[in-house]
């Protein structure tokens, strides 16, 4: 069963990923991306990371891809791209070498270390219904609970820091979209 889920989800992920790269039309690419994101969410579920699966769907598929599609429509940049033509001569070989290199070497590293134990193990993941400390059983929200604990203890600073990141996003959009205060009189303009 797990295998089936894995194979199917992996198929979704890979197909979606390839789709992003090969679909000529940006909208199609965006939809392929959704496929991948769903596939990843499925993997999250099968890896017992339920909260992340949910967030993955909501944030990625729900917000980010929608944002993409929104921008495509807003700008009308939905012209198809002819992928048979490559103006930069060495680009494709470069991509091939890089892709093969990265995938090959990373896979080599992963496979060669598949039996190597990590230097340290964690305290264990709580899964719904699984055992937790002192013999009690975790509830249906065990994963969320553990995540929250971790988030607000060890990682509380990062959590707060993300708010600073959001300030950047806010201030950034303001700068990038506000109206020009003054027309340019000289200097180079586009």
């Amino acid at each position: 069963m797990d295998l089936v889920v894995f194979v199917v989800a992996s198929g979704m992920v890979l197909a979606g990923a390839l789709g992003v790269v090969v679909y000529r039309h940006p909208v199609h690419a965006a939809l392929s991306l959704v496929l991948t994101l769903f596939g990843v969410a499925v993997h999250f579920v099968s890896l017992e990371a339920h909260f992340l699966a949910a967030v993955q769907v909501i944030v990625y598929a729900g917000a980010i891809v929608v944002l993409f599609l929104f921008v495509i429509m807003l700008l009308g940049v939905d012209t198809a791209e002819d992928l048979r033509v490559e103006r930069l001569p060495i680009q494709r070989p470069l991509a091939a070498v890089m892709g093969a290199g990265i995938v090959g070497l990373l896979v080599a590293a992963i496979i060669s270390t598949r039996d190597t134990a990590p230097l340290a193990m964690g305290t264990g993941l709580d899964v719904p219904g699984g055992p937790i400390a002192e013999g009690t059983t975790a509830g249906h929200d065990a994963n969320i609970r553990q995540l929250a604990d971790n988030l607000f203890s060890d990682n509380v600073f990062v959590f707060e820091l993300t708010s600073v990141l959001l300030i950047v996003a806010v201030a950034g959009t303001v700068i990038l979209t506000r109206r020009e205060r003054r027309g340019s009189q000289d200097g180079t303009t586009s």
Partner: protein
Amino acid sequence: MIDVVWLIPALPLLGFVLILLFGRRLGDPKAGYLATAMVGASFVVAAGVYFDLLSEPAEERSHVVTLFSWLPVGDLKVDMAFLADPLSITMCLFVTGIGALIHLYAVGYMHGDPKFSKFFLYLNLFAFSMLMLVLGENLLVTFLGWEGVGTCSYFLIAFWHARASAATAGKKAFVTNRVGDFGFMLAMFLAFQAVGSISYSVVNHAAEEGSLARSTATAIAALLFLGATGKSAQLPLYFWLPDAMEGPTPVSALIHAATMVTAGVFLMVRMNPVLTQSYDWVPTTIAWIGVITALFAATVAIAQNDIKKVLAYSTVSQLGYMFLAVGSGAYVAAIFHMITHAFFKALLFLGSGSVIHGMHDQQDMRYMGMLRKLMPVTAATFIVGWLAIAGVFPLSGFWSKDEILMFSAAKSPALYVVGLVVALLTAFYMTRQVILVFFGKARWEDQAEEHGAHGDFKPHESPWIMLTPLVVLAGLAAVGGIIQLPDVSWLPESITQKLEHWLEPVIEFGEADVGGTWWSQNKTILMLLASAAAVGGIIVAWLVYEKDRIKINEPTILANAWYYDKAVSDFMGGPGRESFDGAAWFDAHVVDGAVNGVGRGVREVATGMRRSQTGYVRNYAGIIGIGVVLLLVWFVLIRGIL
């Protein structure tokens, strides 16, 4: 008096300084008199020192007077010191004596020249340098004078520097002399390394007692001789001297006949123990180079038309004689001939100067002739000089030349034969000159019309101030031989070999002992042979030039000095210059080219790399991607898995 031996060079130096400061104010002719007086005063001091020395026993006639420490560095201790001994005082006497006479002559000769005072400035500086040369207690003080006379010679040859040939001749003289100086310097270094000193006394002493190795002595002697060939215009470095005639005639008389050019001979005599200590090939080589130079120059002198050029080649030839003497171990004869030569050659030069003066700067003998009528004093004195140089009995040249021939015969009959031929040739070309200038037809009238310079061109006799030195010198040239009369039976012993006795402390180690040879016992025969050669030369020349009995063509090759000078010039101007140009090209294009090439290389490599910065963001991502792959290869493959 000996303690003030330093006054001998100091007085001309004072003259130099005074003229430098006040020369212009003194002007013509007072600056000249001042200069003459200074050299004259030097002569007086030198004479005083001479008598002081005479009053001492022979073996103590060597005094060192130290002024100050000059270059004291570690083991090298060079003092500014003078050596007053028979040799140096002899040199001083004739340098200052003849120098004073020539100074006096120059007052008249240079009269009216816009650079009159400058001329005496140089002349006094020259006298100072020459006296430093001869009085130096060590090789370096001599070298100071040696270079000093070279420099002054340069100044004076190029005195009329607006004339290109004069400027070139000056430069040529200086540079050629420098080639010789190269040898002098190395000899000095070698001496220092060998004996830790460059003082004559130390070096010569080491040679005398044999602590100076023969090989070292050989090298020193050979190198010193190289120096001497430069300064004394011997083959292969003689060629600057004929060109040096571009200078004013008193300069030719003083520097290029009487004094400076004999410095090489002096140096060899000074260092005679080292020469004696060296292997035999050195003196032999010196003798042969001397005699070959003598022959070579004598042949060339036959075909010269410039009145001074004849004398110049004659000088070279006579210097060759002196080196023949040095090489034969006849140091006394060398000095003797140096002195007599100074008398008669200075006389001849001054006489020629008088002629030139009277001919309004005409030097070509083909436009002279019959001048004895118009310039009787000049002609008379010149004839004395002629006879002296030709070796006619009993004039001074006869005695000195004869002595040299005797010693050379003792060394090798071949040398003697060549020497005798030279004597004949000398008589021949000098006779030719005298006839062309003072006898024959007056050819200057044609020339005057040709040039039209003066309405009524007429050679004239020179003023008394020029003639006085001529007369004095003529007297000396005539009787100069008495200072070293040979010890032959027909002369009373009390008047013979004065110079030899006087110089004995200096030369006793090196002087060749010919006493027992056939040659020395039959001096009278040799004298007759020499006289025959001289008279033969005169007669032949008389027949050729005065009587037109014999027609000879003066070969062009002789007129061009066997093309030796031309070959050297062609080499220097041709391959020599080309190789220098090549070096300059090498520097500009190869060495500097490499430097600029590196710059250009950086630029080109950078321009190439710049092309990778295409501006396409996807390309950039690719470059980063390649970087990623490379890092992964290193980390995962090389460090991780392998």
